[in-house]
């Protein structure tokens, strides 16, 4: 198990050999779950970050030097993340990238806030590419945290509107979610959208996260409620087992999901997944030729097509790269606060459309696409004959949910 590995290119080595006159390169640290049960999620984020950093370096890096990518394994939990964050800070990492879990994200944003309070002039920036809990841009929002992923409100709103327009929503919705920050946000979002979607939430269930093998009792409950649609923010096994159990019970419901596009899901669910919906941050088919080009380029460099959260991670880091280019070096060093200010005004044309950073709460505004699992999809998932057929694309403005009032952003003077 490697605690840390550096991607070293020939260029920084040469720079070292040529003398110490030049300032140290900017270090970006990926702080993900690279081992253990959640490793598959963490490794996907890492692949996307590598791709984006390679692209940044190919276009000249920053201040005439390639950016250095460091990798840290948070071992699947907030404790490991906290430890490795200290290690990263000690090694001079100025930008931390993480996305794998809201629980870990909550830890990192707090640690980064405290570190920056105690070490003025040596600030760290937290680039959140996937932790979607509302509190990160709400009561916990801070100047050095930027989220480049969607959140529960955005996803649920798009999902409800698209399913309503496709006339598949029905009047009774069952909300089932995992009992932690993300699942609770999702439940709230499903309830909040009831009026707009013209449905009633017949029942709400919160269950233990990734502990349940047998979802049959939950399916019995869904069946008894008479719901037409099940909306859930569940991911990974909790989503698959729920869908498998409801198929086995012959339940006639439609699923509105957020994470059905994770690698391996369609392979496992097979035909059962057909006809269900997912709110995504990227769908190559919806993005047209730009999407095709991105897919081909990503595959050529990473060895696999980007799925689930990989595209949003790439676009997020593209925005960071854009802000970096606009930040001038001060005595050869990167001023993180200046970079953060530039990030606040970053706009980027992604294959899906324009994305921008909202300065008020550091939540990215990005287009959302709602897709249905179908055989007609252009790109098939997991080597099956099913894929995600776009149903409706929402521009960043249409998809956006307002900034939370609980966010009181403290900007450094």
């Amino acid at each position: 198990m490697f605690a840390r590995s550096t991607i070293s290119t020939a260029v920084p080595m040469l720079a070292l050999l040529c003398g110490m006159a030049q300032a140290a390169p900017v270090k970006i640290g990926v702080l993900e779950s690279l081992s253990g049960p959640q490793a598959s999620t963490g490794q996907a984020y890492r692949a996307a970050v590598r791709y984006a950093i390679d692209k940044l370096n190919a276009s000249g890096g920053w201040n005439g030097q390639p950016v250095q990518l460091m990798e840290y394994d948070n071992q699947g939990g907030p404790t490991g993340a906290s430890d490795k964050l200290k290690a990263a800070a000690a090694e001079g990492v100025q930008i931390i990238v993480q996305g794998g879990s809201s629980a870990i994200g909550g830890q990192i944003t707090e640690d980064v806030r405290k570190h920056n309070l105690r070490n003025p002039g040596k600030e760290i920036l937290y680039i959140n590419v996937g932790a979607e809990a509302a509190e990160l841009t709400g009561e916990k929002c801070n100047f050095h945290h930027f989220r480049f992923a969607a959140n529960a409100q955005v996803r649920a709103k798009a999902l409800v509107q698209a399913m309503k327009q496709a006339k598949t929503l029905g009047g009774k919705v069952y909300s089932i979610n995992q009992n932690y920050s993300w699942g609770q946000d999702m439940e709230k979002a499903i309830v909040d959208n009831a009026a707009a979607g013209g449905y009633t939430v017949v029942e709400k269930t919160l269950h233990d996260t990734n502990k349940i093998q047998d979802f049959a009792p939950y399916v019995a409950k869904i069946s008894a409620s008479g719901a037409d649609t099940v909306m859930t923010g569940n991911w990974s096994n909790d989503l698959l087992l729920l869908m498998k159990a409801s198929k086995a019970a012959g339940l006639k419901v439609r699923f509105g999901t957020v994470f059905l596009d994770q690698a391996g899901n369609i392979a496992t669910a097979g035909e059962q997944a057909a006809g269900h919906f997912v709110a995504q941050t990227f769908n190559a088919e919806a993005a047209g030729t730009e999407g095709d080009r991105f897919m081909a380029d990503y595959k050529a460099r990473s060895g696999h097509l980007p799925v689930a959260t990989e595209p949003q991670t790439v676009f997020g880091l593209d925005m960071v790269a854009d802000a970096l280019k606009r930040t001038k070096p001060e005595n050869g060093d990167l001023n993180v606060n200046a970079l953060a200010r530039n990030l606040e005004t970053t706009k980027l044309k992604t294959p899906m459309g324009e994305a921008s950073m909202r300065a008020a709460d550091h939540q990215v505004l990005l287009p959302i696409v709602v897709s249905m699992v179908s055989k007609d999809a252009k790109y098939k998932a997991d080597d099956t004959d099913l894929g995600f057929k776009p149903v409706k694309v929402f521009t960043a403005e249409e998809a956006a949910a307002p900034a939370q009032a609980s966010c009181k952003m403290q900007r450094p003077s």
Partner: protein
Amino acid sequence: MDTFVFSLLNGTVYGLLLFMVSAGLTLVFGMMGVLNFAHASFYMLGAYFAYSLQGLLGFGPAVVTATLLAGAVGVVVERFFLRRVHHHGHAHELLLTFGLSFIIAEAIKLFFGNFPVDYRIPPALDFAAFTLGRQQYPAYRVLMAAVALAMFGTLYLLLTRTRIGIIVRAAIHRPRMAQALGHNVQLVFMGVFGVGAALAGLAGAVAGAFYTTNPNMALEVGVMVFVVVVVGGLGSLGGAMLASLLIGIVTSLAVSVDSSLADLLALVGAQAWAQDIGGLMTLKVSSLAATLPFLLMLLILLVRPSGLMGEKT
């Protein structure tokens, strides 16, 4: 009423599945005094073996072959690993199986990738056994229950009604005496370990298709299996059966209970007060369903540390 019957059925079948995995663990513990941390890994191996062989042999033969293969791996582990460290004491055996569970998990990731694989129920078995109200009951669940019951029956008869059973039980209780009487205790150990692994493999091969087959499945089921074995009493087959059913049914029924502590306190007129406090007081029982087995374990350990049907502590 329908819901209640379904919950009961669901719980029973899930309990029987838990029994399939825990039977081997409790047998091995009873015999060798080793808590085998790698036991759930055999469950995972069974699922992956069946998945790989399914295309080649068809579902039924693949399940049988997977069971035998998992058993064979178990035999190898006992013969070439556990036996070597046996004289160093239980701590070493424990550490060995602990390490082994990691190695098996990483090996699976190496060969099959980090993601779930598409191991599914064959279409021929994918139908409803019966319909109750709005819900169908899948035939495959009935099949899983039948396999578990057949397994329990066979094991029980084997241990209590045959000569092999007598020798095994003798080797469990008084290994030295059994050895002195001319029985090959080493062989018995190897055999029981192999059978234990095979049972776990069978459970994996059968359940992997119904649930999901992924590199974390050993972890997912492993914890619950330990709970079963502790609640039932280490080394007791009957106890494992009782505890499995208890845990399965309790979890299943709890899902449909939407009350909280606050509702209970309403009986003494303190509901408003409890709701004010919030936190634990307003937590619904249904959202705790998967945690209840652990509460049960805690209770058993406090009240009856040897488990429901265990002999030794």
